[in-house]
């Protein structure tokens, strides 16, 4: 898979949009995770309502793939539960590692995530895509524990 396919316009557009970038006032949960391989860093804050994401914000110091994945979260994650995000992240990991189908999601899916399919085969980059999801899950658990 060439770099042109990896860095297709959909990925670049997602990263450029940076949907969800910022901070929340008084979040219920927060997480700051690093990718030990490359130093990417993702901070996510969430507000919860009835066990679901009411609002979220992220701050990413990282590569294009990491920023694009965080932006996909910014676009789609509001309304999801921790279990749904966990299932989605597992499906995404499956797509990356075993060229599985794009995550179906718990509703109409996250069509943006299909753009990450060319990352399959680039093992050193799986962590870049998954880091925002891992960070979101940690933030959700922290938020749930605090509720």
């Amino acid at each position: 898979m060439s770099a042109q396919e990896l860095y297709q316009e959909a990925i670049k557009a997602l990263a450029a949009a940076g949907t969800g970038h910022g901070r929340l006032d008084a979040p219920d949960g927060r997480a700051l995770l690093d990718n030990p391989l490359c130093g990417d860093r993702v901070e996510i804050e969430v507000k919860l309502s009835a066990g679901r994401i009411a609002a979220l914000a992220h701050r990413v110091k990282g590569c294009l793939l990491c920023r694009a994945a965080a932006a996909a979260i910014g676009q789609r994650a509001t309304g999801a539960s921790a279990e749904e995000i966990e299932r989605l992240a597992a499906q995404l990991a499956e797509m990356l590692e075993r060229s599985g189908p794009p995550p179906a999601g718990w509703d109409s899916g996250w069509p943006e995530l299909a753009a990450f399919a060319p990352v399959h085969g680039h093992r050193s980059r799986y962590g870049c895509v998954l880091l925002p999801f891992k960070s979101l899950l940690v933030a959700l658990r922290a938020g749930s524990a605090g509720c």
Partner: protein
Amino acid sequence: MSFDPAALRRQFPLLAGDARLHYLDNASTAQMPQAVLERLVSHETRTRANVQRGSYALAERASEAYAGARERARRFLNAARAEEVVFTSGTTASINIFAQAFGARLAPADEIVISAAEHHSNFVPWQLLRDRSGARLRMLPLTRDGRIDLARLADFVTARCRLIAITHCSNVTGALTDIAAVRRAARAVGARVLVDGAQAAQHGAVDVQALDVDAYAFSGHKCFGPNGVGVLWVRAELLETLPPAFAGGGMVARVSLEQTSFADPPTRFEAGTPPIAQAVGLGAALDWMMALPWVEIRAHEERLARRLLGALGEMEDVSILGPRDTQARLPIVAFNLRDVHPHDLAQVLGDYGLCLRGGHHCAQPLHAAFGLEASTRASFAPYNDDADVDALLEGLAAARRILR
């Protein structure tokens, strides 16, 4: 002996078999020449046995080969005695072993001085030791051009200093450290000096007697040898007084229920079966290195680095980490392309056969000192040539198109 990089490249099967491969990640791992590969295969097919234990002929030959590797390391370092050479699994293990052994004597008031330019391997072991011993860890800052600020030595090396652990060459900026200045500061207060030679040893033999330091560490895989082997050299008068860092077979004199007495160096510090074939391979790599014309090679490497630094320096969207000249530096060049993450840049360059590292290079404190998270690094070895620089410059142009 005249130097021809193309001829040298032909000695490396991985490079000779792929003209499109531009291997510029030598600061991470250098390739292995055919002579080293053959020595490894020869040892494992004809001489494989444990060492320093058996008395049968095969074991004796294996022990002889292992001792021969130690002698080659001694010659490479110009050490006074082969017994000063401890085989480890690499520079990381060498520094950790030294930290454990030397650190056993530290008191809470003692100080260790490192720098902001250190690889994590010469940073984290001292943090762990600080946490265990209560000793104070002090960090020399960088100058504005990214060198270790040795003008501040007097501020950091006090009467409480017991050790300065410092890199011979930054694995990010390529800047060489003036070890003589470090040694003078250490000697003035009776402190010891450990030098992380992981990068410097790749660019020619080292003279530890001329450096006049107390300990020196380097890795096999950066010196055209195998993975999994490295060297910790320690001056005999110090090494003989150090307690072992690890315990097990091979490092003892006598064991009883009540107590254990330890073997003399270097085996006191080589618990368990050592990396025998790897050490033999490293010996072959050091032989190979010592036969090369390093004056010419260094001029060649410096010319490549100067050419790359010059080209990058003319690009308005490129920033270079550390010194922009080739004075007191090795051919390691780290840089950033504006609005492009190093991880993405390295990925795109890979499509053009370019092998460069993008990331923090296990030097996060150094990147933090520059206000950065990461960089892209090109590092040259003797087999690199102008075609590698050309390919990198073309790759950068492609990366701008693809990533922006």
